């Protein structure tokens, strides 16, 4: 099956949408400071104190995907877009 191509902006926007709509209230009281790795198509997510462990769990199930990775509780607002953050020409 062909994987859809996502730009960095796509991954961030989809990941943020999942985090803020579904996960923030659920995870922040009990998992603050841990890493969440989100597969942005299915919405499936992986949590661990060790970012590398969470990433490897995600890659074991979704080997060819790019993930949205964030520290639970440290993301307080939706980001500006990736191009702006990296000072790339729009």
């Amino acid at each position, binding site marked *: 099956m062909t994987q859809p191509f996502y730009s*960095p902006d796509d*991954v*961030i926007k989809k*990941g*943020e949408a999942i985090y803020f709509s579904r996960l923030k209230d659920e995870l922040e009281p009990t998992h603050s*400071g841990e890493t969440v*790795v989100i597969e942005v198509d299915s919405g499936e997510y992986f949590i661990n104190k*060790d*970012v*590398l462990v969470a*990433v490897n769990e*995600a*890659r074991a199930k979704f080997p060819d995907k*790019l*993930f*949205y*990775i*964030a*520290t639970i509780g*440290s*993301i*307080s*607002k939706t*980001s500006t877009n*990736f191009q702006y*953050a*990296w*000072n790339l020409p729009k």
Partner: protein
Amino acid sequence: MHGTFQNNLAFIEFKLRGTESGALEHTFQGMIDTGFNGYLQVPLMAALPVGLKLVGLNQSTIANGSQTTSLGCEGRITICGEVFDTFVSLPTDGPILIGTQLLAKLGKDLHIDFVKGTYTFKDKPKKMQP
């Protein structure tokens, strides 16, 4: 493993490469940053030649309170004679930082002498068998 300070900052040499076979290995000097709770941060342009594997987009809040987005990669580090896989954040610029998750995975005691301006990594003492 001993090191010294530069301008009151502790630096250590390490080697980094991608996890795929045939990846090139480069040597870097990184600053030990106990305020950075991640693994390793290497600016994008410095990291590109070593062929790290891109795994995602990493959003985090840095010391000044601002929120940043960087590429998140996996690589293999050689540091203090140990070799292991590491997560690497690739911001557009900034210093090379060695964070506390990487120090924890290294599994050694870190002794810093701020008076002499030196630091030492020591193997943890083995527990005595009863």
